[in-house]
């Protein structure tokens, strides 16, 4: 459990203080940051958003054999307002892209995004000759972790989730989300 910030120097934090208009960010970060991070990373609630075959792997990950609840992430929410992890599992078409962006924007910040599978990363098997599939969701939502595979196995998704947990640990608690 890290107190303080990995990879960020004090001047950088002070610059963030200035930008965010929150005084004493560094002190807060040092005093209570680890509690926030501990709570956040062990209770990631994913949004129930599966659009294609990757969703089957996501369901398998949530089910007993792989059991994502070992990482505190089993509470799949049907509402974006209760979720803080968006697992984009499956092909995103242009029309679904609008919905995905809206869902992302409705999630309370801070929130994280996993792009699961080839389709969401770069279009996957629909890269060529497709007039609907978006060539990578990172063109309209900020993606934190890419999980490659077609579809990725549940172990890969769990690895992706652990990467998110690592990211939460390494980032400042008042980190600013970039807008897509």
């Amino acid at each position, binding site marked *: 459990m890290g107190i303080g910030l990995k990879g960020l120097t004090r001047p950088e934090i002070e610059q963030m203080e200035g930008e965010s208009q929150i005084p004493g960010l560094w002190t807060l970060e040092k005093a209570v940051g680890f509690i926030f991070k501990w709570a956040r990373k062990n209770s990631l609630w994913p949004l129930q958003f599966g659009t294609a075959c990757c969703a089957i792997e996501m369901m398998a990950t949530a089910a007993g054999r792989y059991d994502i609840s070992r990482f505190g992430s089993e509470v799949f929410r049907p509402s974006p307002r209760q979720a803080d992890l968006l697992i984009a599992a499956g092909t995103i078409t242009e*029309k679904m892209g609008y919905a995905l962006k809206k869902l992302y924007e409705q999630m309370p910040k801070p929130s994280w995004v996993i792009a699961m599978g080839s389709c969401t990363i770069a279009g996957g098997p629909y890269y060529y000759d*497709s*007039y609907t599939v978006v060539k990578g969701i990172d063109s309209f939502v900020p993606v934190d972790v890419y999980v490659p595979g077609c579809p990725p196995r549940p172990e890969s998704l769990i690895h992706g989730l652990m990467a998110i947990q690592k990211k939460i640990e390494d980032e400042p608690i008042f980190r600013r989300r970039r807008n897509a």
Partner: protein
Amino acid sequence: MTNEDLKAKIDAEFKDKILSSAVSGQKELIVLVKADAYVDFCRALRDKAEYAFQHLSCLTAVDYPKENKITLVDHLWSYKFAHQLTLKVDLDRANPRISTVENVWKSANWFEREVFDLYGVVFEGHSDLRRIMMPEDYTKFPLRKDFTDDGFIVKPN
């Protein structure tokens, strides 16, 4: 009733409505219909007891840019006799328009919306002719052979 019998019957009865008819190598009866007799022909096939095509199982289109036409393809199916018929209509590619068969088979509603969406065929008299799959502000017709778009990457050979 075999497809050959059905073909002979349709040839005799609808001589003025059809352009040609043939039984393909896969024993499929294909009838090319005149565009202005399309709806009447469909209604007759549905209503007459000896044909009884109650079901429109598919309605789609094919683009032939070299011949400058879009062919509308209907697949009809009869539950009563278990026979099938493929119905084709040639349309002008520059301005593809045809009457709707929504009043004959209800299921044509969404099929025609799909053909409108992907090929740009306008169905006159259709109750709700909107795009069904592409975004509503989309302006192109993706299944036409000359389709290009910004995000559309053609597979190199």
